[in-house]
């Protein structure tokens, strides 16, 4: 749905144009402002539902009396330009001009890492939401950076657990040629031997992101005669790959394991071409069970935005719930105190309890693992179950080995 947004704040900023504005004091009793930067323009399919749900959650928190004993929260949304250079400037603007208490958001991994290092330099909390790279909480982790969403490693591990013990030995990997694809492939190769003894990788394909030559890639994968395929492609690459693979019969009698494919963002475009029986991570929002708070969230979202929730929506909503809980517990905007409170903070969210693990700053929010199917000519998931992130994290030894001492 096309939506043209020009926020009131933005118009205010326009009116003041280049004139210097006095910084709003974040004094006692005032509204608490939080900076949210994301690729609203470049990654609109994810980021707009994400922002919708954040606004929904923000309004609900404020309607219920705010945080820290009656203070309102307000998210200041900014486009990060989808490049690290723009993102760091925007982060600077949020801190200096908009006087936000701390930062949240980002989509791309390189943007997330650049903002994380910037936050570390400025000693401000940065709650990364969408970047999936393991480096954010491992090798390049720092005191000020935390991440909510399950990382590449965690999601790959969930999928590998789902195929544990199957008699599928010859594997082919297809992944987009950038960090997310490369590290998902590396994680898969690392985890596979323990799950399926004797398994081997017989082919690897790394098409350039957004520029897959689907025919050639499908041909190259088929030649290696694999029993199973691990797919990391998403978006337009995935659609092209699936169509080509369906027509050429690449997926017949093969086990296909695929990251993120069950998320509505990527499942909806596949439509009736959605392949049957792929094992995927995703978000079957209409089949969630055992989470009493989830259905009210979905109902309110659909009523307000006249659209079904996406994975981004869920993430945005949970982010605000964690932030509200953090502010209530810390009862201060002092960033050092906030970070101390955030360590091992448990929040009851719409997906159940989520903790921010203290040793690696990784949230235990999970995701759903299930199989793809076609229902009413639309892509859907079946047999989905919620995989709690807490069960799939890096071990404490691995974290200690990877993270520099704080």
């Amino acid at each position, binding site marked *: 749905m*096309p939506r*043209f*947004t020009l*926020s009131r704040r*933005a118009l205010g*900023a*326009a009116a003041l*144009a280049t004139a210097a504005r006095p910084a709003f004091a974040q004094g006692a009793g005032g509204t608490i402002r939080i900076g949210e930067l994301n690729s*609203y*323009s470049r990654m*609109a*399919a994810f980021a*707009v539902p994400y922002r919708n749900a954040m606004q929904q959650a923000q309004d609900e928190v404020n309607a219920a009396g705010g945080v820290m004993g009656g203070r309102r929260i307000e998210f200041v949304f900014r*486009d990060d330009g989808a*490049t*690290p250079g*723009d993102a*760091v*400037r*925007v982060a*600077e*603007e949020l801190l*200096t001009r908009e006087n936000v208490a701390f930062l949240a958001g980002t989509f791309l991994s*390189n943007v997330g*890492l*650049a903002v*994380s*290092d*910037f936050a570390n*330099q400025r000693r401000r909390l940065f709650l990364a939401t969408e970047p999936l790279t393991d*480096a954010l909480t491992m090798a*390049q982790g720092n005191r000020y950076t935390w991440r909510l969403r399950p990382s590449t490693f965690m999601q790959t591990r969930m999928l590998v657990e789902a195929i544990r013990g199957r008699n599928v030995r010859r594997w082919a990997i297809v992944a987009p*040629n*950038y*960090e997310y694809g*490369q590290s998902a492939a590396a994680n898969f190769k690392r985890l596979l031997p323990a799950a399926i003894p004797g398994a081997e990788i017989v082919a690897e*394909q*790394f*098409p*350039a992101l*957004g*520029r897959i*030559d*689907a*025919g*050639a890639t499908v*041909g*190259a994968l088929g*030649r290696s005669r694999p029993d199973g395929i691990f797919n990391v492609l998403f*978006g*337009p690459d995935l*659609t*092209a790959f699936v*169509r080509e693979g369906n*027509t*050429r*019969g690449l997926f017949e009698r093969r086990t296909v394991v695929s990251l993120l494919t069950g998320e509505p963002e990527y499942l*909806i*475009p596949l*439509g009736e071409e959605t392949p049957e029986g792929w094992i995927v991570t995703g978000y079957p929002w209409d089949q969630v069970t055992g989470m009493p708070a989830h259905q009210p969230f979905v109902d309110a979202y659909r009523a307000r935005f006249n659209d079904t929730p996406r994975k981004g929506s869920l993430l945005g909503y949970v982010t605000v719930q964690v932030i509200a809980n953090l502010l209530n517990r810390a009862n201060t905007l002092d960033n050092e105190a906030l970070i101390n409170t955030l360590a091992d903070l448990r929040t009851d969210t719409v997906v159940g309890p989520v903790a921010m693990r203290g040793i690696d700053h990784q949230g235990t929010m999970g995701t759903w693992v299930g199989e793809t199917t076609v229902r009413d000519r639309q892509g859907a998931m079946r047999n989905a179950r919620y995989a709690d992130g807490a069960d799939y994290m890096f071990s404490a030894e691995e974290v200690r080995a990877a993270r520099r001492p704080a």
Partner: protein
Amino acid sequence: MEWDFLLIQALSGLASASSLFVIASGLTIVFGVTRIVNFAHGSFYMLGAYAAVTIVPWLLEFDRSPALFFAGVLVSALVVGVLGVVMEVTLLRRIYRVPELFQLLATFGVVLIVQDLVLLIWGPMDITGPRAPGLRHAVLILDQRFPAYELFLIFVGPAVLALLWLLMHRTRFGVLIRAATQDREMVGALGVNQAMLFTGTLFLGAALAGLGGALQIPRVSANPQMDLSIIAEAFVVTVIGGMGSVPGAFLAALLIGQLQAFGVLVFPKITLVLVFLLMAVVLVVKPWGLLGKPEAAAGRAVLPEGIIDPKRLDRASQALIVVALAAVLALPLLDAYAVKVGTEVLILALAAFSLNFLVGNGGIVSFGHAAYFGLGAYGAGLLVVRAGAPMEAALAAAPFVAGAFAALFGFFVVRLSGIYLAMLTLAFAQIAYAVVFQWVEVTGGDNGLVGVWPSRWAASREVYHHLVAACCVVAIVALRRVIHAPFGATLRAARDSAQRADATGVDVRTHRWLAFTLAGSAAGLAGGLYAFSKGSIDPTLLGIPMSVDFLSMLLLGGIQSVLGPIAGAAAFHAVKDFFMPLTDHWRLFLGLSIIAMVLVFPRGLAGFWAGLRRRPA
């Protein structure tokens, strides 16, 4: 050998080649006639796909017949052709008299606008179109399944080639297109209505791009990123084939299709750069592409584009510079964020100035200047992160690292001229980008490296701002000095007529090579300063968008002026920084601003200023 597999793979390559050719043929025809480097060609391709996923399903509601499917595809192509006419009549026609390069800026504005219009009209979700009725199945070839639709696509390319041949050789319009491609001035002198010819050419070019996009809908989903993913490849095809040569584009598309189909088998990770490697090799061996010819007008005296006479500054301009300099130094009095933006403007101004040293003064149009900016940033950043060097040493090294690469690449670049030179700089930039992107162990891959922060004494925004101001002003003044020096004058002579300069004893190639190296070093210094202002380095610093930004800045400022690019950098960055926080659709407003400035200041900001000065009081 698995012959059956190799055959199927070759057929896949042919199908891709065919699609690529349909798109590239439009680009090459438009360039041949109008000499416009049409960045918006990718946007027309995207619009073709979006038009088709809208029109075709609607038609198939009536009857799921192949005829209606292809009728829908053709209608989409025609709709896009009309959009091409709209662009020509409302925008390009108004700026045919300004330097050719300037039109590139206008088409870049169109790219930005179309990106956001597509989001506004069709929404952000990818839209998967219907498959072609009657061609959904696979055909068995040597016991291997091959999609019937791709078999069909294989024949589309030659069919389009044949139709274009008929058009070119059997119609008056085609004869005029060929004539204009060979010698545009002569066609004009013979009384051909150029406006009609250009409008017709833009229609043909845009319709071919639209056809290419519409034919893709049974294979890929219409998505908002497809414009940029195709445009670089389409340029590569037209350049390898020879700009303006339709058969050349066909040959090049075949070559690239097969290269990709078999390349993924041998080097599954190298697809990012394979086509650019091929382009670099072809251009080094055959400077005008496979079937291209040197421009007929190359030897003729043309009105030079760029800095003609670097006059001394008049009083008013001097006053303006003093005020601007004082404002830059006084920024810390304003607020912290203004300092941050001011720092970036200074850095970008140096990069744009160094580019104009090549473009405006030397006539060496570089489409890959960001490579040297980025390599300077990586040189500085890697020294800090990997070798633990202090900021001062890293900053001093940045121009040398970038300069070394500029010397290496420039050695090949300066052998060419015009658009081929520009495309070779682009190819080298993409190769550098791919190396930085793939060499994860050293460069950190696309995640980049973090922790590139200034030394303690320069850590505050204000001190770093003044450090940047000092470096940039010194570098700009030095480069300006070179422009005024005999070396600069020699470069201008070589730009205006390489033969005459050669005849007077100037070693044109060596002069250009030195200029390329010097400009690369200056960009490298800017890149180093940029890295320390951001704290991180990543491959986007070397990317095509960054190069296009630099070009936009200097065109906005005016390539005829020595100091114009500085104003251009300030204006471009300020406009972007102004619109980005306001709305998700900042690209729309940035594009509109660019086009507005192109129309209002057709000779750039500096040209406008000079016009004010000349006006009698």
